[in-house]
Every structure is written in structure tokens, then in C-alpha cells.
């Protein structure tokens, strides 16, 4: 197996501008008001006058052991040998929604065409093997979102205060700081 690719969200740089969300939609041809492969979430704590706000952009975490793949009856979900990206074959997917109940992050969403989730822009022609970035990462105005081989991301993350992502049994390819 090749390198495992994944995302790294640096909350110390995210300002919730939503550029990644919209870039994801326009490049993947997702209609407004339907689904969102990527979402910027906000974590609030504390009360006025000392509240904190933390923003984090998340999508499919391309788990090392994807729970969605295991439960898919149609074998429509697979993990790519070469980069570890978890992809959906929409032709095979019957839209049973079972993967939503399996994914610890509630990532899978559904359209008439079947399950829909982040494919690291492989579907719209981004060549990650040649170092191209998924559009959410390429568009991020504050360099808060990164994509690449996990070891490289871990190196970047080590410069910051890492946040632990609950690994469950699926071992998500997602880092946060």
C-alpha cells in the first residue's frame, strides 16, 4: 500500500470564512441547499466577556479502517491502494444509508445518485499523486487546512498544540491542532 493521505485542520488559523465549503461545492457540482461534503464547525465555550470560539473544517476522514466500507452491502465503498482515499462507486451504491450509521463522524450523505462524500477531489480531476491539492485546501485564504501524506501532516502538526481526534476503531486520517 502507498502512503495514507489525509487532512490536517489547524484551528489556530481558521477564521470560519467558509471558502473551503463553497469551493468544495462548486468544484464538485453540488447544488446549494442540498448536501455538504465539507463543513466548518464551531466550538464555543465560556461565557461573555471571556468566551472562546474555535473553528474547524471537516469532511470525510479517509479512515485507515473505514467503518463505512465494512458495512456497505454493495461493496460500493473502497479504500484506494495508492493513497488511502476512501471512495464511493455511485453505480454500485444502492443508497441504503447503512454507512451513515456506521461512520463515527456521520459523514455520508445521500442524493438520488447514492452516497456522497469527500473524495479529495479525485472525482473532479485533481491529481493528488502529482502534489495537487483538493480545492478546499487550495482555496483556504489563511492556510488553515492542509492535505497530504499523513507523515508530512504529522510533521506540520508537531509545530502546534495537537488536538486529539477520537480515533474509535476506524483510525481517521485527520489531524487537528
Amino acid at each position, binding site marked *: 500500500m502507498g502512503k495514507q493521505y489525509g487532512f490536517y485542520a489547524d484551528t489556530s488559523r481558521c477564521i470560519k470564512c467558509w471558502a473551503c465549503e463553497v469551493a468544495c461545492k462548486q468544484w464538485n457540482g453540488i447544488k446549494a441547499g442540498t448536501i455538504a461534503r465539507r463543513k466548518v*464547525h*464551531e*466550538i*464555543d*465555550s465560556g461565557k461573555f466577556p471571556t468566551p472562546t470560539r*474555535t473553528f*474547524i473544517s*471537516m469532511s470525510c476522514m479517509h479512515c485507515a479502517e473505514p*467503518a463505512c466500507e*465494512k*458495512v*456497505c*452491502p*454493495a*461493496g460500493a465503498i473502497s479504500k484506494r491502494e495508492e493513497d488511502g482515499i476512501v471512495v464511493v462507486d455511485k453505480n*454500485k*451504491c*444502492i*443508497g*441504503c*444509508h*447503512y454507512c*451513515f*450509521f*456506521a*461512520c*463515527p*463522524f*456521520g459523514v455520508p450523505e*445521500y*442524493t*438520488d*445518485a*447514492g452516497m456522497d462524500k469527500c473524495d479529495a477531489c479525485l472525482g473532479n480531476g485533481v491529481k493528488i499523486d502529482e502534489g495537487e491539492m483538493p480545492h478546499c485546501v487550495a482555496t483556504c485564504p489563511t492556510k488553515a487546512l492542509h492535505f497530504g501524506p499523513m507523515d508530512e501532516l504529522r510533521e506540520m502538526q508537531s509545530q502546534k498544540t495537537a*488536538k*486529539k*481526534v*477520537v480515533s*474509535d*476503531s476506524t483510525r481517521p486520517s485527520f489531524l*487537528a491542532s
Partner: protein
Amino acid sequence: MPELQDTWSWLPAIYLFLGGLSGGAFLTVALIKLFKPGKFKTTVMGGMWIAVAALAVGLFCLIAEVEKPFQAIVMFQSFVNFGSWMTIGAWILFAAFIVFLLSALLATDKVTDWLAKSWKKLPEIQGTLGKVLAIIGAVLAVCVAVYTGILLGAAPAIPLWNTWLLPALFTVSAFDTGLAAVLILAAFVERDGAFAPIRDLLEKVVMGLVVLEAIVLAAFVATMQGGGTNEAVSVGILTSGQLSGQFWGLVVVVGLALPLAAALAQVLLSRKREDKQVAVALPVAGGACALVGGFTLRFVVLAAGIHAALVSPAVLQAVEGISIFL
């Protein structure tokens, strides 16, 4: 207030109920057939047709739920990953449906008479064939009943479902509701006086099952309440949240307490009275209550099965605060 699970609608709840009922009903009549061969044929035949019909409607509901039903029914293409419980379940259901259907056909005199015209050997092997089918069918019936619980129990991201107690609960409820359906049927169609002891036995089994179901349900609720935040929030929907009315009223009172009372009354009455006809109303009422309770149980468990990532009042807060970051 957490929002109810709506990724699966109420259609799968119907399946979970009817699938269980089908398994329970088939198991009941298969046992009658095996232990009292050649007797109570109407009840056995009726019970088998109930199993077939319930499974057919249940499967229809299940298929109607998916985005691409026509693709889904091409089973050898769409159910290929045997690492998935859904695939195993789908093939079990498929096999069960065939066996249930064959059993029902074979238990129907009109069909066998007609078949015997062209298939001379049939009367010879009919008994053995029926038995074999009943045995295979009984095993499959148990699988079908258990599978309704496993389908949910094998969904790791739903805290309320991800416990072995759920298959246990649904299995007990499946037998309970299947049995209730057969008892209702028998109350109307079974004219054989010799059925009375069987009925008494079955009523006792009902009592046992109801008590068992109550215990499993209590264990399920207690386990959830004692589990993590996610589990507690989910089960709170049942015990004190949006679905508490349905849960306490329909599942506990109507689905458990009333059938228990009805079964108890039935058993007591049958000891005192010679006139068996008087007792028809009781098993029907008790059975009907069990069915209502059984369906509501599936419905509330399905609806309260909110995703771990969405549990907790402030939805997004939970995504990151509880389940993503430690």
C-alpha cells in the same frame, strides 16, 4: 432537545416489526407442525401464510427505503460484501422468504392437490418435505428474528443500538409478536378442541416472553442510562423525552403489561371454565396489544437512534466537543 433520527424513516420500523413477527409466527407454527404432526393444519397453514405476508410487506418497506430500489433487488449485484451484516441479512431474508413460501404452499391443501396431479410423487414425500422445510424454516425464522436486532446493533455509530441487548430485545419481541399473531389467528380459525392445551401452553410461553422482554428492556434502558453521555441522551428520548409517551404508554403498558394480564387471565379462565369460546376475546385483545407494543418498540428505538456525532442538545457542539476531541 436532540432531533430524532431521520436518515432512516418509519419504513424500516415496519420492516423491523414485520420481519420479527414473520420469524416469530413461522417458528411457532413450525414447532406445532413438528411436535404435533398433522394436527391443527389450519392454524399451521395460516401461520405460515402470515409469516410469508409479513415478510413480503416488511421487505417491500425495506426496499422502498433505499435510494435505488430497483438496483437493490438485483441481489447478486447489490449484496455482495459478506463482511456486512446487511448482506448476510439480505440473503437470510431471501432464503427465509423462499422457505417460508414453500412451506406455506406445501401446507395448503389446494396447492398440494393441484400439484399432485402432475407430480405423482408428491403425496409420498410431502410429509418429509414439510418437516425438512419446517426445520430449515424454523432455523431461518430465528435468524430473521435475530437479524432485525443485529441490523441496528451492528451500526457502531449509533450509541443506542450498538449493544447485544438490542438483538436480544428484538428477538424476544419477535417471538412474542409472532406468537401473538398466531394466537389471534387461532382464536378465529382453529376449531379443533384439542388445541386448548396448546393454547394454554402458548399463553404461558407468552407470559414468559413478556416477562423476559420486560427484563431485557429494563436491562437495555439501565445499560444506556449508565453508559456514556451519548447513550444517556438517546435513551432519555425514550424515557423522558419526545418519545416518552409512546414508550411508556404503548411499549410498556400496552405492549407488555396488557398482554401479560391477558395471558394470565386466559390461563386462569381456562382452568375454571369448560366453555372455551368465551376466551376468544382475550387472546385477541392481548395479542393485539402485543402487536401494537411490538411495532411501537421498533419505531421508538429506530427514531431515538441518533448518531453519536449529533447527540447532545447543542448539535455541533457535540460533534467536536464530545465525540471528536478528547
